[in-house]
């Protein structure tokens, strides 16, 4: 198994989460019970602009769905991938082409070539991590349901 730890760096994850505004979700489902929909819905609640990328849908979560990253008419901070691993190299190439800030691959979306393309194109790369979980770990309320955030800190932060 390949070592993914360089694509799971805590500082990179926190920087991406804190600085991003727009998230293009590639493979976002229109079915409200699918994991991708849960993540998209959550991101909207936390004030990210979610852009669906799914050629089979016209609108998801109240936003226009685009057939590909190339069709998105605005700057993308995070390309969040919910597709099969073998689709990743193509998605990574498009992400580089449109000047996205980060490539974020969900659980199981692991493809070395895709990671390399994005990295060489200057994108921050996070692999085999869930964007919702990492946001909830560092910013949100994952701890409210007894999940292990692994965070240890005595720093007082603002209102939740």
């Amino acid at each position, binding site marked *: 198994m390949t070592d993914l730890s360089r694509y799971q*760096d*805590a*500082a990179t994850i*926190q*920087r991406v989460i*804190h600085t991003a505004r727009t998230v293009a979700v590639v493979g976002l489902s229109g079915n409200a*019970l*699918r*994991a991708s929909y*849960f993540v998209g*819905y*959550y991101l909207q*609640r936390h004030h990210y602009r979610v852009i669906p990328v799914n050629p089979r849908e016209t609108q998801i979560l109240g936003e226009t769905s685009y057939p590909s990253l190339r069709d998105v008419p605005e700057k993308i901070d995070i390309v969040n991938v919910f597709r099969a691993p073998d689709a990743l190299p193509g998605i990574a190439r498009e992400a580089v082409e449109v000047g996205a800030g980060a490539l974020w691959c969900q*659980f199981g979306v692991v493809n070395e070539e895709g990671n390399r393309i994005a990295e060489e194109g200057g994108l921050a790369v996070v692999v085999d991590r*869930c964007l919702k*979980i990492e946001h*909830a770990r*560092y910013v*949100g*309320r*994952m*701890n*409210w*349901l*007894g*999940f*292990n*955030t*692994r*965070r*240890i*800190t*005595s*720093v*007082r*932060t*603002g*209102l*939740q």
Partner: protein
Amino acid sequence: MTEEPFRTEEDREFGFETRQLHAGQRPDPNTGARAVPIFQTTSYVFEDPESAAAYFNLQEYGNTYSRIMNPTVAVFEERVANLEGGMGAVAFSSGIAAQAAALFTLLQPGDHVVSSGALYGGTVNQFKHLLRKMNVALTWVDPDDPEAWRAAVRPETKAFFAETIGNPSGNVLDIETVATIAHEHRIPLLVDNTFATPYLCRPIDWGADIVIHSATKFIGGHGTSIGGVVVEAGTFDWSNGRFPVIADPSPAYHGLRFHETFGTYGYLMKLRAETLRDLGGALSPFNAFLFLQGLETLSLRMERHVSNALAVASFLRDHELASNVTYPGLPDSRYRPLVEKYLPRGAGAVFSFDCAGGRTGGQDLIRGVTLWSHLANVGDAKSLIIHPASTTHRQLGDEELRAAGVAPGTVRLSVGTESIDDLIWDLRQGFAKVAASDGRA
């Protein structure tokens, strides 16, 4: 370079002693309170209808009702999950409730469970009667025999269950071997880690999938509160075809597929959002607070518990009125290799021995001690003693007692953290009484 408007936290491997104090809690953002606040509330005001819907749909982590989640209880849950190296935890109103919920979440009628036969009596009752009532079949196995576990597997087997250190006979589970056999058959291993605590053993490190505690014991540590907790590793593949009850659309949650939607959190989400919701058995925030106070000193207490236990066990081994001392931490224990592998910091502090004079001898010993507390609990900072033949197993005759692994003179000890000389002084008082009755004085 300009300073970033946020502070990044390093992904550091903090030590156990640090985590037992800090994990799960951050200073309260509203008040700055350093201690964990006791959120003694049944319910929570929603920001707006959309937020309320998002919480109930599990689309957002939010508080709805304290039967299902509570901020004080959540600190306790995360702290135990962190100390055990799990993905998360769900707390319950007792260890028995935790165990029932852990099994309910993954079982359905017609299923089968393979369990160690060397268990706490309360668990034996729960499995023997409650599982059968739910039409779940059960096979008891000798936990020390790996082949017995393998041979007991059926197509409908859904769980292996055992205790890290068996109550009261002190057998030590070969966790890695039993977990491997379970996983060969795509079955999870559930381990009751009450007697070891995560300070002495972390079963998840050795392949266990679910860890259960009676928090009433060493976690609370002071005999104040009843409670339990279930920790899941988050690595078991519940979509392996054997667990439609977790993988298939849930009729109790508008068709949600818990494992597909929540991935590594699937089991824990179902345990909370369905099982805890429907069975009740929620932990009270005040008890969670007391358990958190206990956890802050867990490592310190356990170090003392095990050093006192070894000293008491060594005293008994050499005493003419004691025999069959089951402490696995003794150098000549048959569990020595397993203790070295799984319990290098000590083999817990609960064990039994047989007192000379049978039933009367055991009773005399109890009458003779004045510092050890005669009661039915373990894991208190205070030393505890009980004579099963005249209490928990009172209805059984000598033959039946033997079948239950208890001799007429068997005495169970839970060694506390008092001055060791005082504990041994008191046992000597007890044995003097035994000897007097026995005509040996």
